[in-house]
């Protein structure tokens, strides 16, 4: 009887140590990871970053084919990874005001907006080509400090991946843009639409 009790006590102690070690490991991983701050810019909000001021005017969801017709860019080709995936585009109308002079060490946020870099937005990110085609006037212009520009930010998404409710939210009014601010990489904001 006594041996059995001792065995139970040993098992309990081992379990307790395992739980504590696990908790410490999880705590250390989370402690060493930089805090990811999310900034939500809702429709109509204005946010000032180091280099830009951004104001979100509106956001709409289109079929990619529909968007191509609107902007007369039928030549634009995009192939979904799978044939049965239907491509949609969330087009966000923003007003960007430049606060800085262009330098070679240009901040990442400019790149993210300009679609030069694939962002973590949805599954496919901002399509750089599509951005240039839609905003040809803006990309061709030499943007000056203090001036505001209308920019349409396109984000492609494959609707097969997203729950129906999420699309309904997007199609409704409270569509908003989230900037993810990651301290780990020197304050790189990344554009996401949520």
């Amino acid at each position: 009887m006594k041996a059995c009790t001792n065995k139970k006590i040993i098992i309990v102690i081992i379990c307790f140590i395992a739980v504590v070690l696990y908790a410490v490991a999880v705590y250390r991983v989370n402690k060493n990871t930089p805090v990811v701050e999310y900034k939500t810019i809702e429709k109509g909000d204005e946010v000032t970053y180091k280099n830009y001021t951004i104001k979100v005017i509106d956001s709409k969801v289109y079929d990619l084919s529909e968007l191509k017709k609107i902007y007369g860019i039928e030549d634009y080709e995009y192939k979904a990874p799978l044939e049965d995936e239907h491509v949609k585009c969330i087009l966000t109308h923003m007003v960007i005001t430049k606060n800085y002079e262009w330098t070679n060490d240009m901040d990442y946020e400019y790149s993210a907006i300009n679609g030069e870099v694939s962002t973590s937005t949805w599954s496919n990110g901002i399509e750089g080509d599509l951005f240039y085609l839609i905003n040809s006037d803006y990309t061709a212009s030499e943007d000056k400090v203090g001036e505001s520009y209308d920019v349409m930010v396109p984000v492609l998404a494959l609707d097969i991946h997203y729950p129906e409710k999420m699309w309904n939210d997007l199609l409704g009014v409270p569509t908003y843009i989230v900037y993810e601010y990651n301290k780990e990489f020197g304050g790189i904001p990344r554009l996401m639409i949520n």
Partner: protein
Amino acid sequence: MKNQIKRAIFSKGMLIVLFISIVLNALFIKYIIGRYNELNATMIKNDGGIRPLDRSPFNCFILINPTVYGTYYHYIIPLLCALPFAASYSIERKKGYVKNEFIRQGKINYIVKKIVATFISGGIAGSMPAVISFLWIFTYRPYIAPTPASGEVAGSNTTIGMLYFTHPFVYYGLFFISMFAICGCFALIALLISDFTVNVLTVLISPMFIDVVLSAVLSNDKTKYLMSSMLELRREHNYVATFFVVISCISFISIVMYIHNKNRDCY
């Protein structure tokens, strides 16, 4: 009942399952961390940093991450479920021990206890590698809630699928419960086979064999109602269908065993 469950959980088969779980997960973690570091280096070189959402632990455990170890695990799930206790009935029949038990506690009573213990042990054994993997990955990756922005989804177009984004732990809790039930059913299939044969090897591989044959024979539409297919997290599976499949499986196996054993004299 308590004795049977204790025998099932503290069996050698369960130890083997635990060992397989640890080995499989260690290999998986080694592979996934290596791949993550590689990706991180490339991303820093090209883009200035890895996409932080790629580090979310919720889309990175053995059952849903498309790695070779996940595929191995997926195929051996039925075998793992049968390992701890499913063959015990055939062993007891072979040794004649079952006659003593029938006299002591009654035939039907004994079989009911066997069914319950096998179901529980099978559920634990089958879902053990997934649960261990889920817990283990949190010691390597920080808590980052899944968002649609990262393109990671599970069970989309279902009400429960939405929980993945809003309450990921609740989502996985429900998933593991359903997985437990499905794995329990795999073990019951092996128990049913053990009612007809005393060959342990046949009993152990029978759920795996049935699953593979059914997957090969059925069309894609029907395959999604197979128990193994329901374990695929990214499939748009229906928890209601899972519930009905599990209940049907338990009822069918119980009825067949009851009828088969009711007037049986030779064991």
